[in-house]
């Protein structure tokens, strides 16, 4: 489903000569329903890699194939469509809209493309998902009235609302306490299975990495397969 072939990412360095090389020759293959966790020290380029996979950024070299399509060859509109339909994002910070209810937050991605799915159908899915993560009773509440863990669960549900093929999570437990982190880890694993969604998680958390299984390490821009834990 997803294949990275010799992906590299460089940045121009202002005031200096030469380039700053963040990712080097990264090759990765992710199949439907599989899950990968990427670990590595701060500044190793984990988020950059995730942004490239999530079509939020473009590689300086190499190819990113999603369902056989090279993302680098696609325009912004097509990329936005892929992000909306095929990829779900979970950020370290939930980025929920404080002005909207929990349910509305979940439905936000469905607004990106008009009339793609029926409103009724999508609402039912949102309610189901919220029920599955134990937030059905909270769906008319605003994010400000929820705990950190609950908010992150809402963010996960939001990421899944359009039935993506790939779920990307960038430090999903980074700002949560241990109990909530455990909870989110369970949820991600469970959804990975039940929703048949491939999952790439970037984390520092050893526990989360262990829960997910297949670990890869990014260090000095080089991705190394550490195998299953």
């Amino acid at each position, binding site marked *: 489903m997803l294949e990275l072939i010799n992906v590299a990412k460089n*940045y121009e360095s202002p005031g200096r000569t030469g380039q700053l090389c963040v990712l080097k020759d990264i090759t990765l293959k992710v199949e439907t329903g599989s899950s990968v966790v990427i670990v590595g020290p701060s500044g190793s380029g984990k988020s950059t890699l995730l942004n490239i996979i999530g079509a939020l950024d473009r590689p300086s070299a190499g190819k990113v194939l999603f369902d056989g399509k090279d993302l680098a060859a696609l325009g912004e509109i097509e990329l936005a469509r892929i992000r909306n339909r095929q990829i779900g994002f979970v950020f370290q910070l939930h980025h929920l809209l404080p002005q909207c209810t929990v349910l509305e937050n979940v439905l936000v991605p469905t607004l990106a493309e008009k009339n793609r799915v029926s409103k009724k159908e999508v609402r039912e899915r949102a309610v189901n998902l919220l029920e599955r993560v134990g937030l059905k009773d909270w769906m008319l509440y605003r994010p400000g009235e929820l705990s950190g863990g609950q908010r992150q669960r809402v963010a996960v549900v939001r990421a899944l609302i359009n039935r993506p093929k790939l779920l990307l999570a960038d430090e999903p437990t980074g700002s949560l306490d241990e109990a909530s982190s455990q909870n989110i880890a369970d949820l991600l694993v469970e959804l990975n299975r039940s929703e048949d969604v491939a999952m790439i998680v970037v984390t520092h958390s050893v526990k989360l990495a262990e829960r997910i299984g297949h670990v890869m390490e990014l260090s000095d821009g080089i991705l190394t397969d550490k195998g299953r834990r």
Partner: protein
Amino acid sequence: MSLFGLAKRSLGFYWRTNLGVLLAVLVSTAVLSGALVVGDSVRHSLKMTAVARLGRTEVALVQQNGFFRTELADELAAELDTTVAPVLQLRGRVADSNESRWENRVEIYGVDERFFKVGAEEKKGAFWEDWRQGVVLNEPLAARLRVGVGEKIGLRIENPGLMPREVPLAPDSDLSIFLRAEVRAIAGKSEFGRFGLQANQIAPLNVYLPIKWLGENLDRDSQANVLLVSGNPQDSITVEKANEAIRKHWQLADAELELRRLDWQDVFELRSRRILMDEALAAAAMQAGGQAVGILTYFVNELRVGEKTTPYSMVTAMGRPAEGNSIIPSNMQDDEILVNRWLADDLGANVGDSIELTYFVLSPMRTLVEQKNSFQIRKILPMDKPAVDPNLMPDFPGLADSNNCRDWKPGIDIDLDKIRDKDEVYWDDYRGTPKAFVTLEAGQKLWSNRYGNMTAVRYPRSGRAVQDIAKELLGGVEPASVGLFFQSVRARGMEAGNPTTDFGQLFLGLSMFLIIAAVILTGILFVFGVESRSRQVGMLLAVGFRPRLVRRLLFLEGGLVAVLGAIAGTAAGLLYTKVMIYLLMIAVSGSDIQFYAKPSTLVVGALAGVGVSLFAIWLTLRKQASRPARELLAQGLEWQFFAAGRVSKGRIGLATAAAATIGAIVLLVALGTGDSSAVTGAFFGAGGLLLIAGLGLSQALLKRAGGVWNRPMVSLAGLGLRNSTRRSGRSLAVIGLLACGTFLVIAVGANRHDPLSEAHRRDSGTGGFTLFGESAIGILHDLNSKEGRASLILDDKSLEGVEVVQLRVRDGDDASCFNLNQAQMPRLLGVRPEELKKRGSFGFADTIEGKGGKEAWDLLNRDEGDDVVPAIGDYPTIIWALGKTIGVESKNELKYRDEKGRSFRLRLVGMLKSSILQGSLLIAEDEFIRRFPSEDGYRVLLIDAPETKADAVSAHLSERLTNFGLAITSAKQRLAEFGKVENTYLSIFQMLGGLGLVLGSVGLGLVVLRNMLERRGELAMLRAVGFNKTALKRMVFYEHAALVLGGLVCGVVAALVAVGPALKSPGADVHYLSLGLTIVAIGISGVVWIWIATTLALRGGMLEALRNE
């Protein structure tokens, strides 16, 4: 859940930010719609004024050079099936009973109930129903005189007289009549008290009298000189129909002609009540009836043969038709004369002798110019018919009704010593029987003048009736040629109600800076709101929203705020309108502007408010969602600012600055020299371009400073300056706001003029005159000559060193800044150009052919063709009141009609600088006389009196010429009154600019506050590493003070260039100190806002902020 729903949610959730945006939109919409409603109010008020002054009048006839029967009104009313009101219109002076208050220029109207039927609201028991005596004053006049109903007033009314006043024989002793009368009523607007045919919006001062009573007092019983035709229900009254009705019904009496039968002569004789028949009429009379004999009888001072003389005699010039009844033989030569026996005996003359005639001819200012001419006696006529015919003498006033020669009172001095007993006997026996006869051609050559060339036309009766000849005569003359023609006063009035200056646009212009400031503030506040939610934007992009969709969502939210703000702003705009109307009424004192808002204008105002706000929002949104989602989602928003590839060299700013500077230089080189109004425009344009250049340069500096990494900042000030480059858009907005505000303050301040600063100079607006006089009745004599002064009983000694330039006046619309109407036919002044040229009076702002200096007065004598008259006006009259200009073919002409209904055009050939002549146009006196021959005398006096005795001269002239209704004001005061209007507009502009600056300051404060709040974490870090609060405040101060300074420098430099010509112009009244203080105040206000915002931002625990970071 929909996009709209999401936008609505955000609207409420972020209500604080949105409230700020809403208030900014409210201000811009209020100002916008308010300014437009000012335009509505002015237009509406002018239309209402037009309705009030014309009532239901559709067309009107104003006879300039005579009077017609009041019965003509009845005949036209029946023909046109509407009300036609006859009016006797004259000028006069009015005073209260003890002469403690008076008004010198008052309109006197003789009217009857038909007048009120045309213009007043219908009401039972109104004063005009049973009104035979007593006068009615209109409200403004009653208020000025402070008289009420039942009180007595004194009226001095011009007496038109029978003969034109400037003819030497016309008496000048009864120029006016005096009436004492009781005030019967005070007429308000609903009682047609506002009546006036001139499109002036300042209420006239009117006195109404019963037409019959006034006519009797003026010996003009049953006569009128104005007809008002009311519109009828069928709405079918047109000028063409009314003129056709005149053609159908007019009679000889309407041209003041009389056709009488002379029995023993067996002729019908046509004569004019005005004594002289004008050329067109005389020519038509000669065509009518067949075998007509033209007659011109003139009063000669002396007939002489050798040493013998006969004084004061009539001599008749007569036609010599082939088959007519004439004393003159058909083969008589023009240098031959027939004398009667009495004269021949008196002079001892025989056939063949030469006889010399001495007589006065018409000359300006009634100067008596005596001329002589000699004839050879062809025949001596016996003292019998047909030569003894007293009817040949017209009814010269002061002569015809005298019992003996010593009672003669013609307009010339008669030397009674010259009158002998035998002359008295001749008068007793033969009255005005002419003593000599010449050919008509010879007589006309000597004695015809602009008023006419015949005193009678005789037709052999040949069995015909009077009516036949009258019909033939009337059929051959166009009534318009004797001044009987209608004009479409309603259409003209309504046209005048569309002022040249669109006050909506004017106030929009005056408020422009305020609007711009509010719009910038809208943008700033909105973008702050959006920026605080940039992570939301990032999230939306990340979940698949396209940037356009995100912008649409935010735009929707901003649109909702804009709509709400515009609705509230439109309501607030009504209040703003009221304030502006109040200010406008201060500027144009005497104007009556009523609040009036058209719903469509409110909609336009609201839409414009929404439009400009949405534009500002769109501008700020353009870049918002264009940043990558990953950047927006990042915790720190700033890192990408300095990221690779984003270093800008500010090329756009530099290019803009360079282009604008080059443009300014080109403009100054091309148009910046010379002495025309284009120079002012060029400098102002160059200033504007330099302002743009300054802003471009600032943008470039900000960008470059932000991109320079290889030079580390080494001070707190350096850090502050570096910080100011972080948000270059915001910083530029602050610089722009302050620069525009400063530019405006200086530009307006420098354009203030003290009209009096050079007022003593002849090339100034006063023309070097100390006094300006206007009279109700024309002054006929030369105020500079001994004789003229003596005729007016003026004390020559009191007037020593005084010079007067006398101007003829043709009343018209007031084209000064006191009249908001669009003047259609401004008042005309007839001037002898050489007088003003000799004095070098009044400075020229522009002329055709670039003729400058006093030589430009010669332009009035240019030959522009038969129907084109060159004219000069001052700048405010030509540019502002008439919307015309000099030299541009399509915009330098005005259409006029002369008093005989002939069309002609005025071509503007010169433009004076703002002057005391504002409101009128000047043409050469000879052209004036050609177009308006019956406008007798001079009604505007430009008086050059030594400064020290100006008051005494004013008092002396006012007292001695009180019967002329002469009002004298100081020329300086008059000029200052005009200047006050301009300066009040500037004050409004400055005040609104000031309000804009307040908004600009609020914007600055918000930018500082926002900058600080965004960087609380960073500031906390600086404190953590050892900076104290004072040091941080200093850093923030450096950062923002640089912006304030940048704004001030840009504004001051650009403004100084823009106002260069204004600073150098005579009368420039630039208060440098106050301007300097204003700029300092702007700077201080900026600093205060910086301080307030910094204090607020640095309040509270820094560690909290650090933790959040």
